[in-house]
């Protein structure tokens, strides 16, 4: 079940539920505040662990700090003060050379380079600070769902959260996708979010 997350929700470093990734979050913030000497990051982990959120959040924060920042998935963008390249596995040979070139450029210019991928670092030649994004526990996922609902302006009861965690796919993008669909469904029907409405949404999405 894959539902698009609403475009008005913006992933930021502040709305990232850190869980076991507090050190990674702190390292990214330090790099953005220039208190961290290492400017290169390789962030890896399985699908849905939050890599894209972190990369897009870092780009958003860089821009609010007045830095030039670029995010790209499956290609290598032009150099900027912060460049985030998501899903490094998608790069073809030419793009990999371009990434290597960008890596050297960022090192020389003091720019930040964030690269994400599924592969463990043993397979990668670019070096910097390497972090595995640890998946959230069910309790942390529940917290993330609460925060997300709050950001969208609706109340999520513990029963709805529990039902979603017990019956839905438990990776965060899928969970948030269902939540967005639930919100839209509730708005359409002008009713509060409840387990029966959630069941309807989940049934329709299958």
């Amino acid at each position: 079940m894959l539902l698009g997350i609403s475009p008005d929700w913006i992933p930021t470093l502040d709305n990232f539920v850190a869980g076991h990734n507090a050190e990674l979050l702190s390292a990214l913030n330090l790099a953005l505040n220039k208190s961290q000497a290492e400017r290169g990051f390789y962030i890896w982990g399985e699908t849905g662990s939050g890599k894209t959120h972190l990369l897009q959040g870092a780009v958003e924060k860089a821009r609010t700090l007045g830095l030039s920042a670029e995010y790209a998935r499956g290609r290598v963008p032009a150099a900027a003060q912060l460049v985030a390249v998501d899903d490094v596995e998608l790069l073809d040979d030419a793009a990999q050379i371009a990434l290597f070139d960008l890596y050297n450029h960022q090192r020389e210019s003091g720019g930040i380079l964030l690269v994400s991928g599924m592969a463990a670092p043993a397979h990668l030649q670019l070096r910097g600070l390497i972090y595995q994004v640890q998946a959230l526990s069910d309790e942390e996922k529940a917290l993330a769902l609460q925060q997300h609902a709050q950001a969208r302006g609706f109340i999520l009861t513990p029963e709805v959260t529990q039902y979603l965690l017990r019956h839905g796919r438990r990776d965060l993008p899928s969970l948030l996708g269902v939540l967005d669909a639930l919100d839209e469904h509730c708005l359409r029907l002008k009713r509060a979010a409840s387990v029966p409405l959630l069941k309807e949404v989940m049934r329709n999405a299958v």
Partner: protein
Amino acid sequence: MPDISLWSECLHFFEETLPPQQFNSWIKPLHCEEIADKFILTAPNTFILKVIQDRFLPEITKIVERSLTKKPQFEFKIGKRTVSPSSPKILPEILVEPVIQINNKNHSKLNGSLAFENFVTGKANQLAHAAAMQVANFPGTIYNPLFIYGGVGLGKTHLLQSIGNLVKKDNSQAKICYVHATNYISDVVRAFQTKKFDEFKQFYNSLDLLLIDDIQFIADKPGTQQEFFYTLNSLIDSNKQVVITCDTFPKEISGIEARLTSRFSCGLTVAVEPPGLEMRVAILLQKSATLNHPIKEEVAFFIAKHVRSNIRELEGALNRILAYAKFHKENITVETSKEALKDLLSAQNKQVSIENIQKTVADFYRLKVIELLSKKRTRTIARPRQMAMCLARELTQLSLPEIGHAFGGRDHSTVLHACKTIENLRNLDHALNADFNLLNQTLRN
């Protein structure tokens, strides 16, 4: 006054009789002066001096004797050649900007932090280091081009930059260009597009020292190769130093013209190998001291034992440990290092499938997978089944109904019950807890 003609005669003799590489290596770096009836031979280092004394002194003596009435006296010194009109292969005196950049965006200046002083040497790179030192002390006179090859992250760029920095230190007016091969390609393309080939050629041909990194990237680019061939010839012919790095031996680079690879080999080719354990430890100790966070030797040994492939990876591991210690406000010990590198050291990111969990758990308890999925509810089967369900919840993102379905069509509440049972038992039963941890670890790695 030095007898220039006598020394020129010596040079001429050796140039005629020795193979060019030997002449360039041993005779060319020598400087001769005649002071108070003594011939003072200055060699750049003790190694060259010893070779001169052992192998070439009898010949030199013979040549000098022919023009003198008495037996010549020689004195030997170690030192640098001084600039004189008789040594045209020294960097020119009047030069322009230290680094000219065709394109400010792409061209790199020398990185002052990469110097010989902080380059850790060991068995793996001592030859490359010695050759680089020679080249930096006597650019354009000994090994030209110097071709350094080796795997990723072994210090080739460090050597390249060190040469540039030392040459710049000795002669601040020298025109030095450090360029990564991909930037050289961009320059060629830009020169084509903007029809500024004369400017391009003028820039590269006017250099005193060209340091080009990762030459393998010009493979399958015939236009760039042709231009680089001309640049290389022009610089070498005018005794300007060229240093090239590559990931492989010249003859093994595919997609590069034979005339170019053969030109690469006409100077000196040296390899940098992956560092051994002691060298890795030395690198870590030095790097951590440079970062003002010196680590203990036991910590350096721990990292060096686990991170073997290259220096860049070693530095990455060290940086991660420093970041971990800073974040958790802990001292750097072997234990904290283990914790910090936990995910870095995992060899591969294995996607755990529910089938894999079922098979691993069944094997562990000497059951058949089919028994795990059956309706049987005896303790010997039900407990492993609950264990497998709990692991599936922990290690996969499947929903509880999906997990239940994979275990013989069970309900999501059965999965929930299994998870709760195992969680409770783990607090009460040490053996079961150990089994759970072992299975969890096995499946993750």
